């Protein structure tokens, strides 16, 4: 009788560390699950958009299409009219351009697949980074060489902070207070 009671008590107490372990597990899941870690992600887009031709061959500036990157938190996607400004004429016979023109005649936007995505609780103001002289390639990789864009960096917090605390090459310095990005 006596020992059975002890056993029962012991069993109950054993639940306490188990509960802590569970709580910790829940905590770590909650802390990490939102982090982006899709480096290498390279989906096939509905229209094959070759950055190398536009950037290297035609020497177009990134800001020609991603015009808001230096004035808004959100770089935006170029409007279809931006594409059609050239492609009504340029390369009109090529199959991918015809695909693009098909969307345009149907007045449908191209449903691009998103590659670079930060969780909602991270605020990444593009214009601050562009304004500070951080090149597009620092975060997006050498897009000018990518026939199909892929995510080159983890976009994880450790990677962000390494730059903000001046450990990058070339070194940048930025605030690393939590409320700089999280609010």
């Amino acid at each position, binding site marked *: 009788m006596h020992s059975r009671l002890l056993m029962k008590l012991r069993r109950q107490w054993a639940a306490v560390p188990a509960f802590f372990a569970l709580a910790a*597990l829940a905590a*770590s899941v909650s*802390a990490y699950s939102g982090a982006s870690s899709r480096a290498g992600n390279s989906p096939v887009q509905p229209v094959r958009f070759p950055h190398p031709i536009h950037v290297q061959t035609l020497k177009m500036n990134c800001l020609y299409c991603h015009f808001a990157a230096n004035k808004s938190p959100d770089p935006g996607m170029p409007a279809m009219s931006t594409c059609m400004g050239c492609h009504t004429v340029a390369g009109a016979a090529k199959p991918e351009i015809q695909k693009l023109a098909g969307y345009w005649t149907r007045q449908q*936007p191209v*449903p691009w*697949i998103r590659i670079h995505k930060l969780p909602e609780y991270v605020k990444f*103001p593009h214009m601050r980074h562009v304004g500070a002289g951080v090149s597009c390639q620092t975060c997006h990789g050498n897009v000018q060489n990518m026939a199909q864009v892929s995510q080159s960096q983890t976009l994880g917090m450790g990677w962000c902070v390494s730059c903000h605390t001046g450990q990058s090459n070339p070194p940048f310095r930025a605030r690393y207070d939590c*409320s700089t990005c999280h609010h």
Partner: protein
Amino acid sequence: MTVKRREFLKVLGVGTATATIGCGTGEVERLIPYLVSPDETVPGVSNYYATTCRECSAACGVLAETRDGRVLKVEGNPQHPLSRGAICARGQAAVQGLYNPDRFRGPMVRRNGTLERVAWEQALQLLAQKLGETRAGGRAASAVFINQHESGSFPGFLDAWLNALGMPSHISFDAQSDFAAIAANRQAYGVSWPRYDFSAARMVISFGADFLDSWGPSVSQQLAWADARADVANAPRLIYVGPRRSLTGLNADEWIPCMPGKEIFIVRMLAGGIPVAAAAAASGVPAEQLASLQRDFTALRPNLALAGGSGPGAMQLALAVNALNAGSVGSTVNVAEAVTAYDGMDSPAVIRAAVERMRAGTVPLLFVRGANPVHAFGKAARVAEAIAKVPFKVSFSSVPDETTELCDLILPDNHSLESWGDAAPVRGTIGLQQPAMEPVFDTRATADVLLELSRRTPSTAARTPEPGYRNWLISRFPGGARALTEALPSGVTAGTIEAGAGSTTAVTAVASPAIESTRGDMYLMLYQHPLLGDGRGANKPWLQEMPDPVTKICWQTVAEIHPRAAERLGVENGDLLTVQTAAGSLTLPALVYLGVRDDTVAIAIGRGREHAGRYARAGINALDLLPAGATDSSGALAYVSTKAQVSKAGGYHELVTTEGSARQHGRGIARAVAAGSLGQAHAPAAADAHGAEAGHGEDGHVVPEMEGMASREFLPGLRAPVANDAQGDLGDPNSNAKGMYHPDHWSGMAKRRWAMTIDLARCTGCSACVTACYAENNIPTVGADWQNAKVFPDRTGFGANIVRSREMAWIRLERYFEGGENGESDFETRFIPMLCQHCGNAPCEPVCPVYATYHAPDGLNVQVYNRCVGTRYCSNNCPYKVRYFNWFGYGEPARPHYAFPEPLNWQLNPDVTVRGKGVMEKCTFCVQRIREAEHRASAEKRPLQADEFTVACAQACPSRAITFGDAADSSWAVTKLIDDERAYHVFEELNTYTAVVYLKKVNHPREAAATAAAGATTGAGAAPQAAH
């Protein structure tokens, strides 16, 4: 080995990390580009469109913030002469009307009793056909068009359209405006609403006029009132006469609890018509109180009297009160710059007459736009029956309501934020209205629909050259399209729009039974809810969830009774009462409220609407208690027109209230000082009649000086870097470890110290700041019945989460009573907005095991949502109780508790994270606005300018009580206010070093006023006499 609190979880988390990292959700997210990018928009950057608020008739100017084609928030337009950048709670909730999930998706036709969606073409054809039949039958002259009153060009446009088709001019109706006051103003001053100059008055007497909250253009009146009171030495005293203290009543320095409908006797006494004793006997007010009122009224001139009673004699009262002001026209009553927004409004008697014609079966066609006559007059008026007799009923309402329930055809109008228009807010000014976004649903502006109908009618087609209402407006705008384009960014332009005649003539006395002859043991006083109005705001969750500024009740209808009445009935808070009148009986919980006469039961109308959407069902519709013929002498509904039999019903329903206690219990949270004792900082504490008792000095260790003089020990600390307060060492400015807390760190963050002052002498308790915060910070509402936890079967219905204290208001308006412990009427009320105090030495920070809350170098107490694991230790340790926990997935669309059903979620601010389940949240000092301003300054390569931005609550505040800024930089306005002698910290004795500094409320007791009056009358100088 010592384990630091972070590592404790790190160690335990290692085993699971491998399992979780690398798991993508597998969802493919799409980026949808514009086909053609709209001009002047940059993705992710807000545009502001100046337009006009149509939530009430006042037509304040607003700025609609839009981003990526969607309206996010409505803010006050600083260039508008009436609202001057401020905005009330109702105005801000316009976005919840725009994105209301219960709006009509498109035109509807009633077939076999139910409404069915049709295409616009079909709907227009049907209407054109019915219109043709009516005209062919020669009955067009009997058609009725009821329009929700609005000022501007639309009423004239509408009449022109109606008349061209042989129909009579429309009826302009507003159930929410005090028509008795408007009719009396038209008679006395020749304008519908003068502007009141409170700063010129030395005394203001309000006879039931809630001018700070729901009576007239309250935003502009509140601004004027706060400015007048801010000049403490010359501030007017406010006396409130009425059976119940409204928000204005609670702000009054003195309350004269007059019997319902008997205010007129006090007015007659002041006018010299009857002696004090007679007035006292008739009004139920002690003779001494009336005698001193009369003395003050004679001594304190110029003065101002306002009437807003709603008894059967409301118009006589308003006329008598306006006569009291006869000598003040030009000083306290400004007729030259009159408010024109109410011009053209018809008497509700005109609607009643039209309803009787419908009942008689002589109306062939009824149009209703915006107005809701079925609901407005209560069940006993049997408006629904009458309307049902009209063969064809058309509604232009964009939301379902009691009237659309009866209509045969619904042609939903655009929301005001989707429409072109104009308004006449104040004499000489035109307010412009422009769409801030494309229509959310398949709706069309009524004006465009009418033009289209004209084109389809052979006789009028030739006279309809304009393709749309916008073109019609331009064709009549002085200077045409170009001038309009130039005027639109400011939202206002000089000019005059001729209003229709309105019904000045149609004001006829309607016989209504005297209150005294009705049966009952208590007077029944209904009043419009300060936020929901007569029910128009009932389907907006922000307005339902925001506690009534006076009663602190939300989502619920209660019967307010005095403590003595409660004792007599044997009930306490929440015990059910039966309130019975000739019209019907309701059972509802009792709220014991000091500010109502003991012979009166007061109930707010505006809730309990069956057909107005999912949120509007909350509560009970008290209009059902009004007997038929409850009409005042101007034709408006008389909310105070009957007695009621009040009895204990047995049973209990918890009050849905956010109030913990109405008393401060000596905590010194909301402090006050007498006007006369200011300016003598070194004098001993001045008497503060019911002031918070200083200190809890029983054990003799904490006795801060609380009365009269602020203890200012910690105020200078607000100027110092955060780390200097109590956080410990500054760190090495060159190191990454704690270096950011050093003012010399390269980031310069620690050079700033964000802080706020709240002037309680200005704050009226209106709670506009609360809604501003909901709008800015994506705060979920939690009171809808489907958001309740299923595990508490006894807690059901609307507001159950609030009963469990799970409301999420980051800023709340606390309301405390001082005095009146035995039910006396001379109690004082103090309002204090309570939000995160951003303590320099915050109790919440050290208890967080995961560093989810910490102190930023610029003084913010930061909550990092993605770090938070929901231990709630911080909330338990917060002495101010300003941290709120997401008990359910209010921010997660997949959960039943989701607070933003589509398309309400279109309003969500993209700059602010929507919090998930299990996360603590709280006021951030609008960190997103701070960062945005810093981004802007950086982009323009300049330092941040003093006062170049402010937080959402301060921006909305219609009494300009809140000031936000950098306490460490003396060029910001906030630093001057911190130096005010009234400044204090709440719970200073806890060494929290708060960044929110309150300025004490200023009381104007009768003695001080009398002394000042004596000084003025004897020529000894107008300055208040020094206290001894």
